[in-house]
């Protein structure tokens, strides 16, 4: 659990982070969204003390981070940055081994851990392991960066625009992979992004930041249904709100008994997927698959449209 208690950071008389209090629950993903200069990266860096708060304190599982030597603290916290920041003179494998090496793990344990992580992130240890960062694709480098951050099994993972350097197709895959990984490991993730769509896709809760303050801190559905300020609404983009809302809910929830023609909607499809499929195939009812993959019911256009309006 990460807890910010009235945290401020002042540079030259200007509060970049202004009296922020926030609690990030253990085992969840919290996305911090804001425009550039909103103080979101500064807030993130106060967790691993790359930035020291001017006032207030940051607690990690109840311990004041200021009471732990910075290097020790950082080795316990995973950190992923935008252009991956891989050490260019080290191979991918050695990059991943960074923190275990600093912690003095035995050689064999490090090697085993590096292998395990590379397999977990779909990187072939024998092919990618010996490569240098400049020999990796953007997606591979990003995954090596995540592997490096996770190497010493941190309970907390800080991600600063981790997908910012990826092209849209790879980005979406990387986001899906991160979500799966986080569910598998139960890591507490704090993710900073300027992209509201990314925050909605990944965040269990979203903190919207503006000018050093939190405008709203709520689950994605609530942010979409009831933006607290005009700024939050602007970030959402009025036109997309209904689709964003639909994209948060599984289509299977709307399934009612019955049958329909045409391809079956997969069980994990969202309501937004269902609507898109209807528009594209010109149908107004779709068969929806149950957990076993067989059609379990139908989803109708009227139900979908009703579901896209919160409240």
């Amino acid at each position: 659990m990460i807890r910010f208690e009235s945290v401020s950071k002042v540079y030259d008389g200007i509060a970049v982070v202004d009296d922020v209090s926030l609690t990030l629950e253990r085992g969840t993903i919290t996305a911090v969204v804001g425009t550039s200069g909103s103080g979101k990266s500064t807030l993130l860096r106060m967790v691993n003390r790359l930035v020291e708060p001017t006032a207030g304190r940051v607690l990690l599982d109840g311990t004041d981070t200021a009471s732990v030597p910075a290097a020790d603290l950082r080795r316990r916290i995973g950190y992923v940055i935008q252009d991956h920041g891989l050490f260019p003179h080290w191979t991918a494998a050695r990059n991943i081994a960074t923190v275990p090496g600093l912690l003095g793990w035995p050689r064999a344990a490090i090697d085993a851990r590096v292998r395990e992580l590379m397999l977990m992130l779909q990187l072939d240890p024998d092919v990618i392991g010996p490569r240098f960062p400049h020999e990796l694709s953007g997606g591979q480098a990003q995954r090596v960066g995540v592997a490096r951050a996770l190497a010493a099994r941190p309970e907390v993972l800080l991600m600063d625009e981790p997908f910012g350097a990826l092209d849209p197709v790879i980005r979406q895959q990387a986001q899906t992979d991160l979500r799966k990984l986080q569910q598998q490991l139960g890591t507490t993730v704090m993710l900073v992004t300027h992209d509201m769509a990314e925050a909605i896709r990944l965040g269990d809760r979203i903190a919207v930041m503006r000018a050093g303050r939190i405008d709203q801190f709520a689950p994605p559905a609530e942010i979409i249904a009831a933006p607290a300020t005009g700024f939050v609404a602007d970030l959402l983009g009025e036109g997309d709100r209904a689709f964003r809302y639909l994209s948060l809910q599984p289509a299977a929830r709307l399934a009612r008994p019955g049958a329909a023609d045409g391809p079956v909607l997969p069980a994990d499809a969202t309501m937004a997927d269902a609507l898109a499929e209807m528009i594209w195939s010109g149908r107004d009812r779709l068969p929806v698959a149950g957990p076993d993959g067989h059609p379990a019911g139908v989803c109708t256009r009227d139900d979908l449209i009703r579901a896209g309006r919160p409240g």
Partner: protein
Amino acid sequence: MTGALIGRLVLLAGVLGFILAPDSFVPLLRPFAPDGMPVIYDRAGFGNLTLWHLGLVVAAIVPSALLAILLAVLVTRPRGAEFLPLSRALVGFGQTFPPVAVLALAVPVVGFGAWPTLIALFLYGLLPIFENALAGLVGVPASVALAADGMGMTPRQKLWQVELPLALPLVVEGIRISAVIAISTAAIGSTVAARSLGEVIIAGLNANNLSFVVQGGLLTAGLAVLVYDGLGLVVAAIRRRPR
């Protein structure tokens, strides 16, 4: 590539050949020597002089490199940043001072011999190595430096494991420049009685024997080219194979 390689080998063979068997070059050099004068310098062996020459260079460049790298490291630490302009000025001053002037000023203090030359070469070596080490350390990408901190490296670990290895090619490049300057400057040291290939040139000038001047000059130039080339290969090897 092959042409350059052949050129290097020919030069190396020529320099070694002259050092080991200078007499075999008599037919080539005879036209430069006045009648009745010796063609090949014979008051000291060329092997001996070459070793002295290179010894001066190494003895001056090694401490010069150490100090320059140390300075560059210090002024790139957060606490040393304010000394950056000062150290730049000091090191630059060492470079603008003419070597002959350094020799002249050093002789009354340390006497004749190798010391004035060592001092001049040492001062002359600082700037290129300092500036290159500085460029190398400052050139570490911000995201890489941030990652080093974020992973929990101590400042010392960051320096040894990340910053210095990344700056190394540029540092060696600086040493390469300094070494070449030092090889040519060391020759001047013989004006204040340092043993070096310069004494052949000076003897030739004193005796009006052009042959001595040519052999001393060409040997010094050959050494400079070979060392420059050799360190160039080292730089290329470091760049090709990151550590």
